[in-house]
């Protein structure tokens, strides 16, 4: 007979099941990106996921010489997120380099799942953004399965702010952007699709809403204050929420278990930090967006936040 210390039963949850839930939650946005960007996006997704999984398997087997961890599906999540963060025209070899940085540098050098300081997918993306700016800011829209004649090409909405001015740019954002926002990383076409996935994660109790809500609130408040002061120079809250990967980052990248704080209040502070840095980069920095940089910077602060913020303990003040 089996003998073990208590408890003798276990919740029906495992690392694998959690990662599977994240994959399911990403599906709506992935499908929308396939519909709009067609075969080229499917190829990027396939290369990204396949390279992440194969790289992790190879590193655990041949370099670390320990049981493979690909079964926990976290490499697939990284692969999907990386592909969603790239422009739909990105050459496939660049995608592979992104996967290499994400898995080999950002994840496995720290010891694999649970040990990494930086979000692997974002690290991969930022590496590509700095190394291959031409590919990474080529927002030409390839042929998709749905006609997208009204699409812009050449620059993202945020990229057009210096060209058009804040007042004109604000007018480009409306209700339709919420459903369909062409121009930008492949994964952020539809805010709706992303939010549906986020709500799924909340319903399945995979994540808590505090980090995401804190980012949204911070971005909205800072944008509102600046916009009210000078609408001609600073874009408004709605514009900033719906563009430049804020939703994708806040729902799926900032909420990554490994690189976010454990406690509720820690999460709120972390979210505030991301929102604040994003807005500072957008208003005063040279990069038009900045979500990736904001998340990476706040990733560094997580150990500190975890040291400072704890849960309320029973019977202690």
């Amino acid at each position, binding site marked *: 007979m089996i003998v073990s210390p208590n408890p003798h039963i276990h919740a029906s949850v495992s690392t694998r099941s959690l990662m599977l839930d994240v994959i399911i939650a990403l599906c709506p946005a992935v499908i929308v990106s396939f519909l709009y960007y067609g075969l080229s996006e499917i190829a990027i997704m396939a290369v990204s996921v396949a390279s992440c999984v194969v790289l992790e398997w190879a590193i655990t087997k041949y370099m670390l010489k320990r049981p493979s961890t690909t079964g926990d599906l976290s490499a697939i999540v990284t692969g999907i997120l990386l592909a969603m963060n790239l422009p739909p025209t990105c050459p496939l070899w660049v995608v592979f380099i992104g996967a290499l940085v994400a898995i080999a540098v950002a994840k496995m050098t720290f010891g694999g799942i649970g040990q990494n300081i930086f979000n692997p997918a974002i690290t991969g993306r930022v590496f590509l953004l700095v190394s291959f700016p031409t590919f990474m800011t080529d927002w030409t829209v390839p042929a998709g399965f749905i006609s997208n004649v009204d699409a812009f090409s050449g620059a993202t909405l945020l990229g057009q702010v210096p060209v058009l001015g804040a007042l004109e740019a604000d007018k480009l954002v409306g209700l339709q952007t919420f459903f369909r926002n062409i121009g930008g990383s492949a994964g952020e076409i539809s805010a709706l699709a992303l939010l549906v996935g986020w709500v799924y994660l909340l319903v399945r109790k995979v994540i808590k809403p505090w980090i995401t809500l804190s980012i949204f609130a911070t971005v909205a408040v800072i944008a509102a204050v600046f916009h009210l002061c000078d609408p001609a120079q600073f874009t408004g809250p709605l514009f900033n929420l719906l563009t430049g990967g804020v939703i994708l980052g806040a729902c799926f990248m900032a909420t990554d278990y490994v690189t976010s704080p454990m406690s509720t209040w820690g999460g709120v502070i972390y979210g505030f930090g991301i929102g604040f840095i994003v807005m500072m980069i957008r208003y005063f920095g040279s990069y038009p967006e900045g979500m990736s940089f904001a998340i990476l910077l706040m990733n560094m602060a997580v150990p500190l936040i975890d040291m400072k913020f704890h849960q309320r303990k029973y019977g*202690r003040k």
Partner: protein
Amino acid sequence: MSKITFAIGGVHPDDAKLSRGCAIEVLPLPETLYVSMAQHLGAPAKPIVAVGDKVRTGQVIAEPGGFISAFVHSPASGTVKSISPRKDLAGNNVTHIEIAVEGDEWVDGVDLSNTLVTDIPDDRQFILDRIKACGVVGLGGATFPTHVKLNPAPGSKAECLILNGAECEPYLTSDFRIMLERTKEIIVGAALMQKVLGDVRTVIGIEENKPEAIEAMRKALAELPYKGIEVLPLKKKYPQGGEKQLIQAVMHREVASGGLPISVGAVVQNVATSLAVYEAVQKNKPLITNVLTVTGNCLPTERQHNYLFRIGMPLSYIISVAGGVPEGAAKLVSGGPMMGRAIANPDAATVKGSSSILYLSESSTRRGTESMCIRCGRCAQACPMGLEPFLLRRLYAAGDLAALEANAVQDCIECGCCLYSCPAYIPLLDHIRQAKVQVMGVIRARNAKK
């Protein structure tokens, strides 16, 4: 839907009360009984009979071995065959008195009738003495001697008696069955303890997955003359029946770290203890029986049972009466699946606090392969004491006892919520329990120095 529950953490396992419909059956006496001297928390009892002595049912066979200890009575009439070490359910040697059963002849002065005695004696000390003489201990799991708990140290004042009918552990139904079948006796027992504590407010907390018990209790309370006793339906959430959690749910007070419930004016007693108090005081009947659930997820419905057993019956005897170990059972547990102890030795004898024999299938109980912590924080969200199990485990691995103490490892109630909810199957509680033992040792050594 009741909203009343504890404030921090908790988990929601499937309650799986498969044997809730099974009425209590009386187990026949076996040929031999083995009465453990470690039936309760505290010092083991000391045998006062010799080999060859004739004993009668209910006769004292061992007396308390210290201040925190209890009397043990013979569960049947017969001859003392041996007094020797025997393996308990963990396989460790404990002194047992072996009794060759010859019948069921009770000692004199015990009321064996079923008549309900509702008059509460005026003398508080009389009630306490009866509880002590009848060897009553807490039957909610800890088996702490009841007379000690009901007699708080001078200077502390009880304000509320909480009767624990939460039975938050999945599978177990013994408390549920006695609440249905011995409703009035439990309430009289509560009234007796209420009297001892000085007519305090009394709350019977029952999780709302047992509506029949709540209904039965309310009906019985209306028919009985006692004042200040109420039924409080609680939300179904584990560990609702934990002493500190129940106090938080009912009184909105928190017992300070290292403190006793009485420090916030609370005394918590299990419903089964209340029944034992009733029998001890009103019937002069010592605690030699209790109700035990035979259940499990690999046991067909018709083989689920709630049994009234005599202490000292070997678990293997009860298993064979109940039709043997079912096919597919991979683990035997005594107690609930969250806090119960795995049975390493099925020949072990039942004790006062035995509450179940639980058969669990391989797939439901085998732990998954341990993998890396993904920092999901589920253990911290689940901990009803607000601890951070992931951190405690890391500190234990580093051997940092000072940091463990600073992070309150000694507050752990070992409820198992952390390991239950860990997606990486990290044996959090296994390590934290060891850390707790070491830190408690440091604290005790420090206190001894002062």
